[in-house]
């Protein structure tokens, strides 16, 4: 008979789950989208992601050495941040800039706040914001391969247009991301010379074919913005595996869809195309993989609804009336700020507690 048994506090059994497992499973959930992106952009995807993940891992190890902490690269959290940074940059950006974005994400947004679990902002989105501020041109142009031909504009119409302003307008919308095109077209609505063309472009964008193209990734955008279908597959896996709370994507996507339907049209209320807004830009990535980041989202069920709806309102507001065509990353970063406040005011009434 064993003399001494191992003694620990209850409970003596634990669910087979760990932070490391959670992180690697989220990374696995990103795989379908990643593979699709490799198909879309070829080796560019691989190089960009290597630079991003490499930058994140080196930064994490460096900071942990500097702070004399245990090196925890195996836990997958830095790997995941790096991968998400890669999903948030356009394919044409210089690799060293990608690595720099990852370094900012890990060093400033994560480790300086205390490391895993203590960061206020989603590190990958902070990295993206850093790159947007530092290299706006690299971050907002150069949409390559899949961008070509996502609009099936009537060639006759553009050829017939003798007006150079119209030609310029059509050029700019056909070489942009769908959200860029929408922004440009909406702005052109007020220009009497362009109004007809702009209406035509918006009609094209909201058409079934365009929405399907966006859903299948046949549009321009950042690496992770162009694969709505595959992000959805990974996202559903997260929900089924309970690695993300369904309330966040449901509240986020639902809010954007509702607002897009109500206010997104050009012929008055409730003429918008919600599916266009759901499948374009970074919304799928943001709703399933960024807003659900455990560390930077609320812990209460009610808080998660508030957080998700807030993200949705901000995203649509920026898309419609803001200075940027896309607002997912800033919306989530802004809502990150409110998380402690939301948690504080959504403390559930405990069992048997009498509300005073």
């Amino acid at each position, binding site marked *: *008979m*064993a*003399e*001494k*048994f*191992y*003694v*620990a*506090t*209850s*409970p*003596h*059994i*634990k*669910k087979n*789950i*760990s*932070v490391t*497992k*959670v992180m690697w499973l989220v990374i696995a959930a990103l795989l379908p989208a990643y593979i699709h992106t490799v198909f879309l952009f070829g080796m560019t995807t691989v190089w960009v992601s290597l630079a991003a993940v490499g930058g994140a891992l080196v930064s994490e190890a460096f900071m942990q050495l500097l702070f004399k902490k245990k090196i*925890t690269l195996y*836990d997958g959290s830095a790997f995941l941040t790096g991968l998400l940074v890669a999903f948030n940059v356009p394919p044409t950006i210089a690799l060293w800039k990608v690595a720099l974005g990852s370094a900012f994400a890990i060093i400033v947004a994560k480790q300086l706040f205390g*490391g*895993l*679990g*203590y960061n206020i902002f989603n590190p990958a989105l902070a990295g993206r914001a850093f790159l947007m501020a530092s290299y706006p041109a690299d971050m907002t142009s150069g949409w390559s391969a899949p961008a070509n031909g996502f609009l099936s504009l009537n060639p006759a119409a553009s050829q017939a247009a003798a007006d150079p302003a119209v030609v310029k307008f059509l050029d700019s919308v056909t070489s942009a991301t769908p959200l860029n095109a929408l922004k440009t077209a909406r702005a052109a609505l007020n220009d009497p010379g362009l109004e007809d063309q702009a209406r035509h472009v918006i009609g094209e964008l909201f058409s079934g074919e365009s929405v399907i193209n966006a859903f299948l990734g046949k549009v321009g955008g950042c690496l992770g913005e162009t694969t709505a279908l595959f992000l959805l597959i990974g996202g559903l896996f997260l929900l089924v595996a309970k690695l993300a*709370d369904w309330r966040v994507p449901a509240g986020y996507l639902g809010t954007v869809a509702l607002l897009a339907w109500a206010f997104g049209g050009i012929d008055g209320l409730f003429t918008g195309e919600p599916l266009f807004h759901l499948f374009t830009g970074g919304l799928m990535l943001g709703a399933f993989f960024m807003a659900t980041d*455990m*560390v*930077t*989202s*609320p*812990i*209460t*069920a009610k808080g*998660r609804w508030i957080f998700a709806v807030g993200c949705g309102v901000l995203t649509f507001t920026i898309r419609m009336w803001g200075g940027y065509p896309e607002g997912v990353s800033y919306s989530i970063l802004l809502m990150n700020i409110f998380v402690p406040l939301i*948690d504080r005011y959504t*403390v*559930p*009434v*405990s*069992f*048997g*507690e*009498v509300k005073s």
Partner: protein
Amino acid sequence: MLTFKGGIHPPEGKALSEHKPLKRLSLPDKVIIPLSQHIGAPAKAVVQVGDEVLTGQKIAEAAGTISANIHSSVTGKVIGIGEFPHPVAGRGTAVVIERSGEDRFFEYPTYTVETCGREDFLKIVAEMGIVGLGGATFPTHVKLSPPSWKKVDTVILNGAECEPYLTCDDRLMQEESRKIALGLLLMVKNTGAETGIVGIEHNKPEAYEKMKEACAPYKELKVALVKTKYPQGAEKQLIDSLTRRKVPAGGLPLDVGIIVQNVGTAFAVYEAVYEGKPLIERAVTVSGEGMKDTANFITRIGDTYERLIDEAGGMKEEAGCLISGGPMMGFAQVTARQLPVIKGTSGILLFTRKQLPGYEESPCISCGACVSVCPMKLLPTQLVTLVKNKRFEEAGEMNINSCIECGSCAYVCPSRIPLVQYVRLGKGALRKISARERAKKEEAK
């Protein structure tokens, strides 16, 4: 299906022992009977070394209102009173009795449900040293005699047995259903209640059928299936599941007109009233992957864990962890040697070294898993943060004292944070703070 909000579904582990009928264990040569086997003051010994005692003879007397009598579980001679290992307290004073040849019972009067009046009933329950056998061991006579201004309408019998691995209540309900039903009937009649409900988790269909059959003759008694979910057997959760009544925070089931007792307790009540038998035996499950074989025993109080393990088939070479009680709320033991079975010992579980969870704590990632499983709807991770930062009063405001320490939060935590342990620390610190404040107020007077 009837249930509560929150909770978890750990692997049940009951298949290891649920098919093993209750087996009456042979009498031990020696019993070690601790004086503290209940919540409240330890009993005061009324025997001395050298005294001859009969089986069922009182050897220690309740010391105060919340305390319980203790009886000899064998016929023999007191050979020592001293410090011994204790499965809950670590160590404690115990009376050691060496068994002589025969098993002669001390005689007590017997009654039936018809002849046993309220006063007799409470006296018997107190005299026979009955305590809650679900594990908490609260003196039963105290629970059954509520103050006159509290009206009790329902007695709930807890047959949930939600702790994984434990099967002794399941077996007891299958094999002694009639006696359990009569025990419940006694409690219903003598507390002025109208109804008695037996709540059984739906993973025990045989027990449910048997109990339903046994309760059928009595119009006061009902049997209900509740969802298999941990902690279904926690008092407040079971009340919620069965009646939708919410026991107020800091309150007792009495505040919603309910008394909850374990099925084992009902069985003990029956034996005490009908057979004049004090609480000297109980059903114990010996199980776990660290055992060569498993068993459900009826064993005398004071028999040792060591002997029960051997009698069940012995432990495997790779056994590394010994638990008294269930795996969720039980107590880890250093050794099985001279470790006595007490009134609250529901299970003796052996786990292998491989099964032991890693305890290396990593930072909280705010996943909120603890929040979604907490059956008391608390924010466990925030309580832990407050306790770690010694902000105990704030933890108090966040209802840390409502925590029932079921361990659901720690079970699901991916960061392996021992949340329950931190909550206990916080509760302890709060108790000290309020004691200090009381003392200050006294001084001020």
